[in-house]
């Protein structure tokens, strides 16, 4: 994936209604964001619909993007994640169960996710900080973040008491934020 500076410049050009810039931005960022939407929504058709919605929103809001405030991929990830969360909160939606990918991938040392995070400039740091967490803390944070599971859903899947899950999540986040600050 392209560097932040490239993505920033593309967003600036989107703000000036340059449709070519949006296309390039899409080519550079959509595989990563589609991966995230697919993971959270668990259905390809839903993920496709959310992607459409999000890139139109990115186009319309490009002029609100400020490089001083966040990295371009962070800004776009926020839009995609929030759209997925909204989608999943629609009433009467039959959401397929999460598979075991996240539980398995993030168990113990989580070599796969860590290697992917370590590859990129903007995620190297969080990979290092995640290593300082207990494995179970990493796992519950990942289950919440990627599979959009609630505390009680995580508790059910791990067969652990709800209060324990909450404190793993809270302490894990505290430690992570402490390390990243």
């Amino acid at each position, binding site marked *: 994936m392209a560097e932040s500076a490239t993505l920033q410049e593309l967003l600036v050009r989107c703000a000036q209604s340059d449709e070519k810039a949006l296309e390039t931005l899409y080519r550079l960022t959509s595989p990563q964001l589609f991966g995230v939407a697919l993971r959270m929504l668990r259905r390809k058709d839903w993920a496709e619909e959310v992607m459409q919605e999000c890139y139109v929103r990115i186009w319309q809001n490009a002029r609100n993007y400020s490089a001083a*405030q966040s990295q371009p991929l962070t800004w776009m990830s926020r839009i995609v994640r929030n759209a997925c969360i909204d989608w999943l909160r629609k009433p009467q939606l039959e959401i397929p169960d999460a598979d075991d990918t996240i539980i398995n991938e993030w168990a113990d040392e989580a070599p796969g996710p860590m290697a992917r995070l370590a590859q990129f400039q903007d995620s190297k740091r969080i990979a290092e900080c995640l290593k300082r967490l207990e494995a179970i803390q990493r796992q519950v944070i990942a289950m919440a973040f990627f599979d959009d599971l609630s505390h009680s859903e995580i508790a059910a899947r791990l067969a652990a008491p709800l209060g324990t899950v909450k404190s793993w999540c809270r302490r894990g986040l505290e430690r992570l934020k402490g390390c990243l600050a």
Partner: protein
Amino acid sequence: MNYRNPLLQTQLAGQYVVGTLRGPARRRFEGLMAADAALRRTVRETEDQLLPLVRAVPPVDPPARVWRQIARRVRAMREVSPWSWGGLYLWRLLAGGFAVAALALSVVLVQPKPAATLVPAQMALLQDKTQHVALVARVAADGSVRVSPLENLSGTATNKALELWAIPPGGAPKSLGLIAANGATLVKRPQVLAGAEVLAVSLEPPGGSPTGAPTGPVLWVGKLVNV
């Protein structure tokens, strides 16, 4: 709960970003964010820290149809030139009689206005923190908003004003002006509304917020949905 407690704010921001803050608690938190610049900053910092996590997911190429749809929608939003076949002035001329047309032409030539950006029709149900819906906002295709209270809100707004805000994703609220506590208000500020994701109503001093940002409590919040 005391939402002003910085430690609690940091904790809730973490839960909000990771996604474990859910249901009414999440909506309440979004309402608080809309009104509180410091809280928005805390959330943004947390997002900057945690969202790079998305890199842990293997990338997947979306099918080609996704881009085709995006490109189609972006093209449809292009500003229509006032004199093109889709443009307003031409149709106004064709629709009116010659006298009216001549008048319209002279007005148009003296005061050319930019064509309005086309906005799809949207609506929002504005709820309080107990999820009680108090107002309905309908957005017409031209970007005008009609806000209708479902009950008389004068009691809530005694000696105060109700101000309507448009909130873009990750951006600060922009004022759409004051609305009536009892009866519908039509707001025509499509440029302020463009790109907004959420509408909110805050309680402000008579005459509206003196700062350009919400100063009073945000009483009702609703997400805009396409209809």
